[in-house]
């Protein structure tokens, strides 16, 4: 996984609440057996008229040439619904490295972190300040300092992340590397659990 530290970029404002993962990547695109190539179908049904790539919907922000960047900014409760990790893969494959919202659904947050996409949860008022910025303004997200800044105005806010996840992202490790490294503990636990279980059951 790529190491993450500072993301300084313009942003794409998605002013929609409760964006569910069925919108991020509709079910019909889940038939792949690899993790690549989902970006072109990100927000597919919001992006194109009648599922036709030659007919982009003009009023959808991804089709607005004024906006671009590595940061997606969305209204509250982003990523609810289905647990499909494809939603995080699509976000990443499209080129976003961070998603900013005032509230994230649990599974999406986890999936994003596991794929090197940083979910940045900000206050509702800060979120609205970001939405108030023009298309050419930039945000700076500093993972180490856990700060997000609106570059134009200098306003900033801190965000939370578990220290463990932070270390993983900054060093490009993933959870599986860690779990494999403690396999001995897992095996010991299994043995203990088995003998404990048989004791519990017998004494009852």
């Amino acid at each position: 996984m790529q190491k993450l530290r500072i993301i300084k970029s313009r942003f794409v404002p998605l002013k929609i609440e409760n964006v569910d993962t069925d919108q991020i990547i509709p079910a019909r695109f889940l038939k792949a057996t690899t993790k690549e190539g989902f970006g072109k179908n990100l927000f597919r049904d919001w992006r194109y008229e009648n599922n036709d790539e030659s007919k982009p919907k003009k009023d959808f922000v991804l089709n607005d040439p004024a906006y671009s960047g590595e940061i997606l900014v969305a209204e509250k409760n982003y990523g609810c619904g289905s647990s499909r990790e494809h939603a995080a893969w699509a976000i990443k494959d499209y080129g976003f490295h961070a998603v900013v919202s005032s509230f994230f659904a649990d599974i999406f947050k986890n999936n994003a972190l596991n794929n090197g996409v940083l979910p940045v949860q900000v206050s509702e008022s800060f979120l609205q300040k970001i939405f108030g910025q023009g298309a050419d303004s930039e945000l700076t997200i500093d993972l180490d300092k856990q700060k997000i800044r609106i570059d134009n105005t200098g306003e900033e806010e801190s965000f939370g992340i578990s220290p463990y996840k932070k270390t993983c992202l900054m060093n490009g490790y993933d959870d599986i590397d860690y779990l494999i490294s403690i396999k001995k503990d897992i095996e010991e636990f299994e043995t203990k659990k088995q003998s404990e279980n048989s004791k519990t059951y017998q004494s009852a």
Partner: protein
Amino acid sequence: MNETNKTDSSRAYSSNGSGGGRTLFEKIWDKHIIKKIEGGPSVFYIDKHFIHEVTSPQAFTGLNNRGIRLFRPKQTVATADHNVPTLHQELPIKEELSRLQVEALKKNCAEHGVELYGLGHPFQGIVHVIGPELGITQPGMTIVCGDSHTSTHGAFGAIAFGIGTSEVEMVMATQCILQSKPKLMRIHIDGVLNKGVVSKDIILHIISKISASGATGYFVEYAGSTIRSLSMEARMTICNMSIEMGARGGMIAPDETTFNYIKGRKFAPHGEEWEKKLAYWKTLYSDANAKFDKEININAAEIEPMITYGTNPGMGIPVTGHIPSLSEVDEKEKASFEKSLRYMGLEPGMNIKGKKVDYVFIGSCTNSRIEDLRMVASFVKGKKKAVNVEVWVVPGSRQVEMQAREEGIDKIFEEAGFMLRQSGCSACLGMNEDKIPAGKYCVSTSNRNFEGRQGAGARTLLASPLTAAATAITGVVADVRELLN
């Protein structure tokens, strides 16, 4: 409904049980934590792992890339459900990508020694239907699957929740994932349900009250006299939809109903082992002095047959109610509300009852068990569907289908003009060819009414099997109570 928030952060809880009482969740959680990472999550041990064709291929590829084998194949069970056809399952799958996914699952399971209940197998079915039905799902277990409705299994007093594909790979590699302990919420439902009101209405009512994100960050325990009176199937419907209010999962303490359901099933313990396990299962309940971060009380008598009108499951109303008018909607929510109604082709303030529909879908891991089919059959017996609706009944598993045929339920459906198909997820998410056409209305017993969920442009109204059946007969959104004698 009333709510209490416990802000007391110094909860008298200690993981070795020496403090105050423990919740059902904590009793199981504590038994499965291998270690806690400093400043991070805990290493959480998984007893059972279900996999299916859609969220497993990339995980298997990950294992293969790391050059490792699946760690505990005996604790993993696979089925093909999400994109399988529901007609002519004996023929090769026509749609190429679906076929490739199902074939990849077969190959991966064979290579890694995983038991697969694939197409054609008598145990095939929706992953959350077959686990309980085969007696694989048991109290006290930790269960995960790369599917958000894994919460269904919590009805047995298990900690069960959906995970992403990276986590599927973690479980395959190590039988563990990393988890932080969620906050705990308890929802009490007490009292007697009204005529025509079933468990689906309970959960739609709850979600409409607390919203589609109202339980985010929480694991929910359902309790109270109403829950106790429900069958296992009905309890599964409730736990199933916990995720639709944002909860990580839902659970219900096991009791005689649970034990009777499990007893004698294919993979249930028997003989001496049954007795030992049973004694343990009986210790699985929240202690009287256990503390929850939030408690909600609901009076069962207030619940009416429910239906959704919008594009998230929190947008539900009693079938006799009206869609909120603009003045009833919070200023901040107005834009999403209007967007949602535009998609649905509905107007603020209008009544939902009497709305003409085109399809009725009875199926999905929420409501496709034998009890659901029996409920529908006993209601439609001797009646005929309205000419303007097409009715699909998709059993949750091969076993459910066989049982329905044995009981003559298939005949009742045939006479009513309902089409009994073969098992799978089907129009719940429209990954196979069972899609609702754009612009059409479908009253569905599934769990999600998101835009395009049942097919691009499809308009979904979520309801109970009884309300769906009544709608099928009248051709319009119906109040089932008017049709019950």
